[in-house]
């Protein structure tokens, strides 16, 4: 659906997007994820035509749109600020795109009614934007962008202005809407949780480049480098040295002297050093020795942070490494873990991700 081919965009000395190539499939929900300044919004704006690449080409639905102005592209955008026209009612805002396309009045009225139904804005058609709540404005922006039936819908952090609860709800609704319409969505966010929840695929950007492209589970469980590992979810990143490779097992010594068995196949070649990634929820913490864990070591809970459904624990292993772990909250049948407790930590070697050290 979208073919981005080694596209570069500079602003003065700053290279916002650097030789990026990316193919977006038809009907896919693709998220551009990265910290602010990583180039994700610039990339999106080049898809909508609000910015023009310095080099490279962009094709949408087979057509070269690299230098096409936004009003000649069959692509619509949901803006971060919503950008609703303050002088037009909800109905006129939504119908704006159809009016620009000179859609016949009857058809326009029918399509607006349909989309109003779709985003559950019935009864609000005659309101002005300033009379709506944040969530309603968001729906109007969404309706306005999908009613012209674009081949691609671009969303620039559309949920960032909503409060946490509404944001969660809209994530689910957006995903549902996308499935129902079968429309290609390109979604920009800096919120990794949002990206994981909604996307078919996620492109992680850093300093103008795509550093990893894959499904949500891919980038979470198998991050390609330390940046992705650290940016997505919580991560214990531990520097480790190769100890030995014998009989199909590889052992490494982590900083602080903790020795761990790591998956042989993933150790990078004959490197002496590597980074080990341990997701906090992969650590099995218990007062009794954990069964079936290839790596088992003792630790002390130095901090306990209550997070509602979960407890966040900071552990100091006897070998001196500091790790964070996430465990389910205590319950009648689950043991309670508290600050100062001595515990066993179990870690299966397949739950360890080995990353190149540099």
């Amino acid at each position: 659906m979208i073919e981005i081919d080694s596209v570069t965009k500079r602003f003065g000395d700053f290279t916002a997007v650097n030789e990026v190539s990316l193919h977006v499939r038809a009907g896919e929900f693709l998220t551009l994820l990265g910290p602010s300044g990583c180039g994700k919004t610039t990339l999106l704006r080049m898809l909508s035509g609000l910015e023009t690449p310095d080099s490279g080409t962009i094709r949408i639905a087979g057509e070269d749109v690299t230098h096409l102005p936004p009003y000649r592209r069959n692509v619509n955008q949901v803006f971060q600020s919503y950008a609703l026209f303050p002088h037009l009612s909800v109905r006129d805002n939504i119908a704006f795109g159809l009016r620009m396309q000179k859609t016949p009045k009857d058809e326009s009225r029918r399509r607006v009614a349909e989309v109003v139904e779709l985003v559950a804005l019935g009864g609000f058609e005659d309101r002005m934007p300033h009379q709506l709540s944040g969530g309603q404005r968001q729906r109007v922006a969404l309706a306005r962008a999908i009613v012209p039936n674009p081949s691609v819908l671009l969303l620039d952090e559309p949920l960032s202005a909503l409060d946490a609860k509404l944001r969660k709800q809209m994530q689910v609704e957006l995903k549902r809407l996308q499935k129902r319409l079968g429309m290609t969505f390109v979604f920009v966010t800096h919120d990794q949780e949002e990206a994981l929840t909604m996307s078919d695929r996620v492109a992680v950007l850093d300093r103008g480049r795509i550093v990893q492209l894959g499904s949500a589970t891919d980038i979470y469980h198998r991050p390609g480098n330390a940046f992705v590992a650290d940016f997505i979810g919580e991560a214990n990143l531990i520097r480790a040295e190769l100890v030995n490779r014998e009989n199909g097992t590889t052992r490494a010594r982590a900083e602080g002297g903790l020795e761990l068995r790591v998956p042989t196949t993933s150790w990078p070649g004959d490197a002496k050093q590597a980074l080990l990634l341990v997701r906090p929820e992969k650590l099995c913490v218990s007062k009794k020795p954990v069964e079936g864990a290839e790596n088992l070591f003792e630790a002390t809970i130095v901090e306990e942070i209550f997070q509602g459904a979960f407890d966040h624990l900071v552990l100091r292993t006897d070998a001196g490494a500091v790790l964070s772990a996430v465990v389910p909250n205590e319950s009648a049948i689950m043991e309670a873990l508290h600050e100062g407790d001595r515990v066993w930590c179990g870690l299966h070697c397949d739950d360890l991700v080995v990353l190149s050290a540099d």
Partner: protein
Amino acid sequence: MHGFLGGASDNPHARRPRVWGWVLLAPMLAWLALFVVAPALILLAYSFASRGALGAVQFGFSWDNYARIFLPSDGRMIYVDILRRSIGYAGLTTLLCVMIGYPVGWFIARRPPALRERLLMLVMIPFWTSFLIRTYAWIAILKREGLLNGLLKASGAVPHIFPEPLDLLYTPTAVVIGLVYAYLPFVILPVYASAEKLDGALIEAAHDLGAGPLRVFREVVVPLTRPGITAGMLLVFVPAIGMFAITDLMGGARVPMIGNVIQNQFTKALNFPFGAALGVVFTLLFVLSYAVLRWLGGRKTEKAK
């Protein structure tokens, strides 16, 4: 209602003034009562009086002064004609000011903030010089042996394009040039104020939804800067219609506008009552044009509320 200068009277926290509010307002109210309401009432009283010997005012109640304005004498209604001409010149001035000032105000508002301030400064700088001196400068430019004709001669435009030096001074053209020059900032500033508030994302959104530059201008930019346009029009039209200094200096006696006629009644003809009647008609005309503009502006912005 919407204020003309993009007013923020929608503020839901706006409260009715209590005691302290009135105390703070008192100096202003006193000033208005003393220097606006009272003189207007005196003017109204004068307008029904008549001129005695040596210009003394003889009070009474007669419509004679108004009849002199609105009834034809010798088949001509010179005062109505002058009024009409005044409206025409002021209207033309307003139109030209909007046509020139709108793009300027828009342009300045769309610059980066640091540059914006410097450009606004350029708009204000002429105000540092006395208005009369600037008008005299225009005389020096437009007169027969002035700067403009000098340039035309030096460049060969005279006699090749124009056979004769241009006789601009003391013509309606000169008056309109002077008026446009004097009132241009009064369009630029309010247009700037409303354009500066316009969120650039709205223009992008309109482009994104398929509107080309012209349609964006018509559908988004004009409606959202309308308060600035209306304020600018009002700020130009109302004073331009009564202006007498520029018409005096640049139009000579040949292009009298209503302001000049009124001034003459008071200073030369010493017919205070007739001058007062002209003044009353003139004031009513202001109120009327204000109401019309306000209604036009309000009708359009009503939807935006």
